[in-house]
Each structure stands twice: as C-alpha cells, then as structure tokens.
C-alpha cells in the first residue's frame, strides 16, 4: 500500500477540485457576509489549479500510457485528461458567468460554488472510472449536485419545479443504470470494464440475456443524461427553469461527462458486442437530432431553444459514438465535439446572461431584436456562437461536425451522415434567426440595457476566442483528442481483475 500515496499524484486534478469544494464550504462559514464574493474567486482558483495539474500530467507524458490506480478502479490516461480539461473549461466558464448572477439573484453563494465544484468533481471521476461501481458513484455525485443547483433559486417556482423534475426523472433513470450494472455484474462476475470485455470474449457471452439487458439498461441510463430522444423529456423544462448560469454549466459539462462515460463503457467493455449496440445508437442519434432540431424551431424562449438545440447536439455526438467501427477516429471526433460544444454553448448562454435581466427576464427571442445596433460586440459574439452551433465555417462547430461526419463515413454510416447534414440544415434556420433578429430587425421599444460584469464579458471573450481557435487552428486540440481516443481504442489498458 505504500505506493497508494504515489498513485494519488496521478489524481492531482481531481484532488485539487475536491479540496477546493470542501474549502469553499469552509470559507462560506468562516468568511464574513460581505466578503462572500471571494468564493467565486476561490472556485475559479481551484479550477485553474486543477487545470494546471492536468497540464502537469500532460507534460509528464501520462497521456500516452494509461496508468491504472487503486487496483484498477481508476485509470489515468489521455482520455480522462482530455475530458478533465473539458470539464474544467466548463467549470471555469460556468464560474465566470455565475459571479454577478449569484449576487444579483441573492443565491446561497457557498452552496452554489461548492456544488458546482462537486459537480465538476463528479464529472472528472466519471472520466477516470475504469469500473462500474466507481462510475456509478461519480455519476451520482454529479447528478445530486446538479439537481440541487437547478433548484437553488428557491425564490422562483420554476427553479424548484425544474429541480423536482430533474430529480425524479434522474433518480428514475439512475435506477435503470444501476440495475443494468447489477445485471452486468451478474453475467460476468466483475464490474471492471476491461475484465467485462475480457469475460465477454473468453466466455462467449455474446448471447447472454443478462448481459445484453444489463448493457441496454446502462445505455438507457446514460442516454438519459446525454438527453437522447426518447429520454429527453426533462431537458427543455429543466434548462428553462434552472438558473441561467447553471443551465449553461450543465448543458455542456454534464453532457460531456455522460458521453465520456458512455463511450468508455461501450468501447472498452462492450466493443465485441458493437453489432448489438451500434444500430440502436444509430437510431437514437437519428431521432435525437431530428426531434431536437425540429422542436427548436418552434421555440420563442431562447433558453428553451438552446435546450432543444442541446438535444440536437447530443444527437450529433451519438452519431460519433455509433461510428464505433471507425475506432479512434470516432471517439476522437466525440471528444473534440465535446470540447467545441462546451466553448460555443456556454458562450451562447453567457450572451443570454449578458442580455438577461433580473429574475430570468429578457429571455425571449424578441428581446434580441436590433441588438447589433446598440451592442455590436455582444451581438458579434452571439452571432459567432450561433454560426458555430449551426456548424458553419470557419468556426469550431463546423470542424466538430465535420469530424463526426468523417467518422460516420468511415464507419460506413452513410445514411446517418446524410441525416446529420439535413438536420444541420434545419438547425440553420433557428440559429441564424437569432443573428437575423440581432442584425436585421428594428429594436423593440425598451432598449435592453446590459449587465456588464467584467467576469461575464471575460467568459464571452474566452469562449469566442476558443471557438475561433478551435475552428482555425484545431491541430493541437485535435491531436490531443486523437491521442486520448487512442488510449481507449488501441487497447491501452491491459486486462485487470478477474478475467
């Protein structure tokens, strides 16, 4: 056990966030009322420190060779490092967009930031989990945190209702997930992903109904979290009801975490059963992107529109996972898309926050009329995010979609690729309608005054720069994604635990 302490070094990013979360709680009771603003800074500092730790591990070339920790319950590899970076980005942007909002709406800042950190911690642990029990616990750390976060604006009935819907449905679906895990355990006698994969192969469990049902239920559990149709019902209501910064944070972070875990489970444990799950994901992806995009067109509330849009993007990413046969190209495209989506979606929400008023006001599409005239910068940012979300060049969204298309084509999913293009065409209508409203329509009677918190502007700026960089010079990020994907697909993990 002496090397247990040494193994902790590999978990530096996670530990930093965990310590940060506890520290924020402690600070909340230690600090006097008026210096609560420090909590936002402490949160950002913890996340930045964690990002530095990720960087440190990258520099130590941990990315290329997976390191199994604590008897194989956790694995530190390029995959988890890349995802950690995505979650931390979501966390940092989320903390930045929260600062002013939390003050203005009078939310409990201690709980708020601590829960945000716990949510990030849950995501990061999901990414490093190499075993289903750990994965389930991480999933619940994340879930419980975001349930509370979405209901933290206790003064608003919508927020409470959102939390309740999210909670009841989330607990319901995590029941499926855990039941699936139990059945998989029953079929293979292990919960370690690698060992499950090995057991399937060595014992020929291809037709074992316990295993297949278990796999189906686990897929359902994650499909709920990624908001795939028909498990998407909660998304519009929760995204609309939750406090705006929370929506921004979870729309990107939770989705990325769920995709990271889903892909790792399917690729590592059930790669040999891909013939079973691939067609199912194919269909889910199709339904998700079509329904998400068509329903988004009918929305008049921008939060709700972005909620449906996030469903659609889940469909695109599902297409990437469904392209399993393309191997690391498929997984890499999903990872890259997760990064891109985090930047552009939180960016878009940040602009919604800039435009928004107290008590979730100013969130109708009509509030964006003529924005370009009075606030060219803000409008330019929003236009950039909308263009990126719609997948037009030269933005990051275009490349992200392009890579997924590439993966789908390589996996010979031509029908899905065409559907993806068609679905994006539909999406252009509602994304660019926002651009349209901002640039081509006369402003309404009451000109929107913007809340100009510097942290909010910083978040918009950061997201915009990222969207451009990831669109124009994607090579670096793309290579990282590719390496990350390879650590999972190239069998970087030798079999551990009982075969």
């Amino acid at each position: 056990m002496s090397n247990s302490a040494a193994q902790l070094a590999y978990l530096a990013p996670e530990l930093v966030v965990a310590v940060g979360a506890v520290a924020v709680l402690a600070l909340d009771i230690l600090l006097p009322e008026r210096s609560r603003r420090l909590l936002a800074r402490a949160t950002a500092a913890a996340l930045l420190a964690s990002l530095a730790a990720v960087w440190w591990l990258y520099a130590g070339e941990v990315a290329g060779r997976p390191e199994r920790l604590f008897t194989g319950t956790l694995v530190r590899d390029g995959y988890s490092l890349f995802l950690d970076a995505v979650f931390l980005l979501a966390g940092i942007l989320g903390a930045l967009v929260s600062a002013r909002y939390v003050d203005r709406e009078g939310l409990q800042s201690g709980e708020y930031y601590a829960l945000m950190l716990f949510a990030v911690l849950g995501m990061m642990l999901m990414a490093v989990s190499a075993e289903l029990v750990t994965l389930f616990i991480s999933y619940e750390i994340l879930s419980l945190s975001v349930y509370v976060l979405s209901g933290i604006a206790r003064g608003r009935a919508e927020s409470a209702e959102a939390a309740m819907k999210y909670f009841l449905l989330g607990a319901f679906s995590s029941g499926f997930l855990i039941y699936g895990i139990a059945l998989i355990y029953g079929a293979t006698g292990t919960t370690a992903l690698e060992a499950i994969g090995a057991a399937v192969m060595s014992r020929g469990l291809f037709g074992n109904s316990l295993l297949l049902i278990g796999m189906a239920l686990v897929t359902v559990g994650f499909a709920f979290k990624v908001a795939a149709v028909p498990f998407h019902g909660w998304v519009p209501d929760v995204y609309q009801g939750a406090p705006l910064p929370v929506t921004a944070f979870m729309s990107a972070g939770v989705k990325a975490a769920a995709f990271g875990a889903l892909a790792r489970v399917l690729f590592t444990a059930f790669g040999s059963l891909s013939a079973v799950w691939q067609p199912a994901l194919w269909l889910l992806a199709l339904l998700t992107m079509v329904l998400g995009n068509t329903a988004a067109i009918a929305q008049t509330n921008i939060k709700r529109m972005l909620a449906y849009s996030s469903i659609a993007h889940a469909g695109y990413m599902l297409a990437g996972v469904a392209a399993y046969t393309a191997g690391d190209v498929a997984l890499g495209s999903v990872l890259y898309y997760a990064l891109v989506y985090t930047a552009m979606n939180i960016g878009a929400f940040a602009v919604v926050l800039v435009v928004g008023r107290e008590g979730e006001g100013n969130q109708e599409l009509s509030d964006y009329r003529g924005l370009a005239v009075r606030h060219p910068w803000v409008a330019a940012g929003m236009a950039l995010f909308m263009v990126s979300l719609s997948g037009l060049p030269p933005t990051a969204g275009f490349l992200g979609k392009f890579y997924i298309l590439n993966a789908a084509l390589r996996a010979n999913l031509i029908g899905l690729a065409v559907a993806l293009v068609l679905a994006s065409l539909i999406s252009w209508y509602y994304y660019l309608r926002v651009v349209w409203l901002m640039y081509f329509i006369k402003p309404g009677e009451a000109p929107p005054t913007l809340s100009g918190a510097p942290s909010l502007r910083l978040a918009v700026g950061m997201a915009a720069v990222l969207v451009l960089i990831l669109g124009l010079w994607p090579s670096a990020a793309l290579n990282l994604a590719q390496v990350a994907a390879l650590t999972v697909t190239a069998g970087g993990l030798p079999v551990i635990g009982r075969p």
Partner: protein
Amino acid sequence: MQWFLEIAWWIPLVPLLGAIANGLAGKRLGKTFVSTVGVGTVAAAFGLALGALAALLAVPGRQFQRDLFAWIPLGSPGAGGFGATFEAPVGYLVDPLAAVMILVVTGVGLLIHVYSVGYMGHDEGYSRYFAYLNLFTASMLLLVLANNFLLMFVGWEGVGLCSYLLIGFWYQKESAAAAGKKAFIVNRVGDFGFVIGMLLLFLAFGTLRFTEVNGLARPLVEQGMVTAGMITAITLLLFVGATGKSAQLPLWVWLPDAMEGPTPVSALIHAATMVTAGVYMIARTGALWALAPLSGAVVAITGALTALFAATIALTQYDLKRVLAYSTISQLGLMLLAAGVGAYTAAIFHLMTHAFFKGLLFLAAGSIMHALGNRIDLREMGQLRRRLPQTFLTFGVGWLAIAGVPPLAGFWSKDEILAEALALGTPYWWASGPVLWGIGTLASFLTAFYMSRAFYLAFFSDQRLDRHVEAHVHESPRSMTRPLWILAGLSILGGAPFGWQALGGGQTTLGAFLDPVWAVAAHGAPEAAHHAPVPNWVLMLFATGVAVVGILIARAGYRTRPFETPEPAQRTLGPFWAFFEDKWHIEAIYHAVFVRGGTALARFLAGPVDQGGVDRAVNGVAGAVGKVGTGLSRAQTGLVRSYAMSILAGAILVVAYFAFR
C-alpha cells in the same frame, strides 16, 4: 518575384484585417479612418494580386500551391475505410484561373470601394458597411484562392453571409429584411447540394484538394475505382450549389430581391463577383465535368434557358436595378452555358468583361439614384442625359458593351461563348451545339433590346421627373464618377486585347494563358471534337447584326416618343408581356407549391393546433418544419409522468432490441 506568390495568402488576409478594424473600431475613429482602411486594404490586395500575377508568369507550369498549415489533419494511419488519410490544409493555389479571378475581385472591388465612399457618405452605418464589404472581399478572395473544397466552402459561406448582411443592410425597411431572408433560404437549398456533393467526392476520392481531384478523376474512372455514375452524381450535386449561388433556374428567385441592398453592393456582390462563384467552381473542377457529359449538358441547357428566361423578364421591368438584376441572371446563364460545353476560357472571359460592364451599369444606376433621391423607376426618369452627362456617357458605354457592339468588351466574350457553344455542343440533342447557340443568340438579341429600352427610357424619351426631385438633380461627386470612367474604359478596352484573335479563329491571348489549367487536368482525355461549322467572322458579323437590330428596334420605340402605357413592346407582345412580367408565373408556382403547400402540410402534420402565441414566419418549407416542431414540442407536456413514460418506453424498446435482436 517568386516572393509575391509566397505571400499570396496576404491577399485575403489584408481585407479581413480591414474588416476587423472597421467593424470593431470604425465607429469611434471616424469616417476618414474607415474610408482609408476600407479602400486601402483592398488597394493593397489589388497590388499583391498584380504582383502574384507577374510572379506566376515566371513560374514553370504556371501553378503555385502552398499549404500554410494543416487545418484539418485527419485519420490515423491504417485506419478507416478509404485507404487514404485525409487532410484539408489551409492552403492556396495560384494558377492562371485564380490569378484572373483575384484580379477581377480586387480590381473591380477596389473601384466599387472608392465609389462607396461617395455613395454611402451620408449613411449612418458607414463603418458597418465598409466592414461588411471588406469582409466580403476577403471571403471572395478566400473562395478563389483556396486549394481545396473545404476551404472554398468557408469562402462560399462567407460570401453568402456578407451577401445577406448587405442585402439586409437597411434592415429598417421590411422589404430589405425579407429579401435577405429569401436569399438565405434559397441558398440553403443550393448549399445542401454542395455539401452532399463534397461528401460524395470525398467518399470517392479520399481527398478534397483541387489538384488531386482533377488529377485523379480520369485514372480512377478508367481503373474502375470510381464509377462514371458517381462522377455524374457529384457534379450534378455541385451544380445544385452553383445554381443557388449563381441564381440560375430554378433557384434564381433571390437575386432580383437582393437589389434591396445598397447599389454598390449589387454591383460588387450581385453582379461582378459572388454570383460568379458557381461558374468559377465548375471551371475549377473541369476534369470532373469532362467525365460527366450528362452533367455538362444539364449545366449548358440550364444556363441557356436561364439566359433566355431572365432576358424576357428583364424587358418588362420598370425598376432599373431589377432590369440589371435580371440581366445579370441572364449573363450568368451564358457563362454557365459556356462552362457546360467545356469552354471554360470563354466562361471566364465573359465573367471578367461582365464584371467590368455590369459593375459599370450598376454604379451608373447608383449614380442616377443618388441624383434622383433614391428613385429608380424608369417611368420617373427621362431626359437625364443633360442633367447627368457623365453618368449618361458611362452608362452608354456599359449599354453598348452588354449589347455586344464591337469592339467593346462584351462583344468579344459573348461571341466567344456562342461560337464555342456551336462548335462544341454536347452529345445530347436537347443540348446540342445549334440548340444552345440558337437560345444564346435569342437571349443576346433580347439583351440588346431591353438594355436599349432602359437606356432610352432613362436618358432620352420625355422628361417625367417628379417636380420636387427635378430641382435637386445633380451629378455625383468625383469619388463616384471616377470609378465610372475607369470601368467605362475597361468596358471598352477590356475585351479586344484578350480575344481579338478569335476574329481569325485562332487561340486568344486569354486562352493561351488559361487553357493550360484544363489541359493539365484533362490530360489523356480524347481531344474534343473542335470543328467550327461556320467561320468565326461570319458568326461575329451575325452577332453584331443581331445586337444592332435589337438596339434599333428599341430606338424606334423609345428614343423620342414620350413614354406611355402600354408601351410599344407591351403592345407588340400582347399577352406574352403579362406572362413575362409575372416571371412566367414561376414565382407564383413556387409560392403555391412551397409556401402554401408547406403550410397545408404543416396544418396536416400539426393537427388542430392553436395558432396563437408563436411568432413564426410561415416561410414555405421552413414554416412547415416549424409547424412540425410545434407539433412535436406539444408532446412536451411538462408532466413528469409522461416523461417517465417516455423513458420507460424507450428503455423497453432498447432492452427488447438488445435481447431479442
């Protein structure tokens, strides 16, 4: 000299920097700054383009390709189903074709920027305007310099974006906003074709680089790696993209409405440059089209029919800018006709001269609008030659050039198109040489007629100006007239030096410069049967005769007579006039099929749904999708139990599928 090619990537970058500077800081730094940056960057790009051309002449093989950085490095070695790893670089390709294009874009663009300084001088959105215009220039240059499809698509969407922004520039006007929207939606149809075509191309070739696509096309088809049907499918899909951008049948509807934008924009984007992107794209991938005769024939006949169709509409219009818009559609049809039969040099030649004279005509029309306080209706003009002498003279030059009167620029290029169409034709009877030539000639005749009609109605005829307007009529400032004169000079001289050899049937100067582009690409192709059934000078004489007759008929009807309705052409054409004026009922048909049909479909799909609450533009198919969306989101009852039910149903289906597959 080589140095100019090394730094050719600055050509789009400089206007882009100008766009950023103007967009972000223009409002604060004042008009002088905006004008200096706006015009200066385009001038710099023009200088760089000239340098690049000079350098290119010294390069053996006349082709220079450079990858700046690996934009999209893709694929892991050995993985994937296509054998090849794929990469899309950010890189540029300078060859004679690209050189001609960048010169046209920066040259004409520069003049129009200068003109805009005067024309837009009093507009509130001055800096916004120049930011958009610079951004457009940058995107267009990216489009023509890109060395692969993907990067070209970036430019393709970029020019589209700027086009919508500029059509809707005066968004306070409902009609301008609606026009931008229309352009947007129609172009999406074209983009869909383009994207799918690009995907198929990638599937078939494993690369999107122009040089590789052109080089691989014939070997791959000959080895049976790619079927001819695939090539036909790819080219037809790409052509769908071209019809959108170049406003051809059946997607032409957006261009006339695009005239809602400022006039210099119409000149630059909707006449001289962007709309020719479709022609350029076809020329760029010539080797593909050489393998798909059916696609070529479709392009040629579409172009020819569009040319005729748009010309008939043009002759019924009263809005001078709309006359020019339909004329643009018609001329673009001629270019595509040439591209379809494989006469790329002729197509590019006409693209170039058209940029000169159509740019000139639009700017002159803008000058008229400027003088008349934004009035553009031919019925409210007349006798303007005395009040606007410079505009009159320059417009006159443009008129003669487009009508095809020798030795002006338009004559040479139009004649070359018609001669090549007759000589080359396509293997299909419905697009054979004589058919194409006949339709093209008829369109040319109509062009001569309707342009003369517009010219005489504006500058001769009787004086029909509004009393209040009349008092303020003034010639435009020098920043506007100077570009007019330069373009007039180009319209006179810009054709003969490049195409005079056609007189004797020999290879033209431009041909000698451009032809190698396609010679390399079509290497190994069977020599096209280039037989001239009729000596070229006979055709030229005939074409001149057609133009002159057209002009003379219009002169008889409109020059001296006071204007009255029904006007002479209307009396002659009888019921046809109304038919043409209503755009052959096509827009009505579109409206019935897509807008009303879409709405009906939506009603059917969405069922008894209340109409209130949702502020939704019922815009044809988009509206239909919107209705479907509304219908779908009605399933979003907000009730936890229904969501749980949906989750359970999904779970049961997934489990059932996994377990009992």
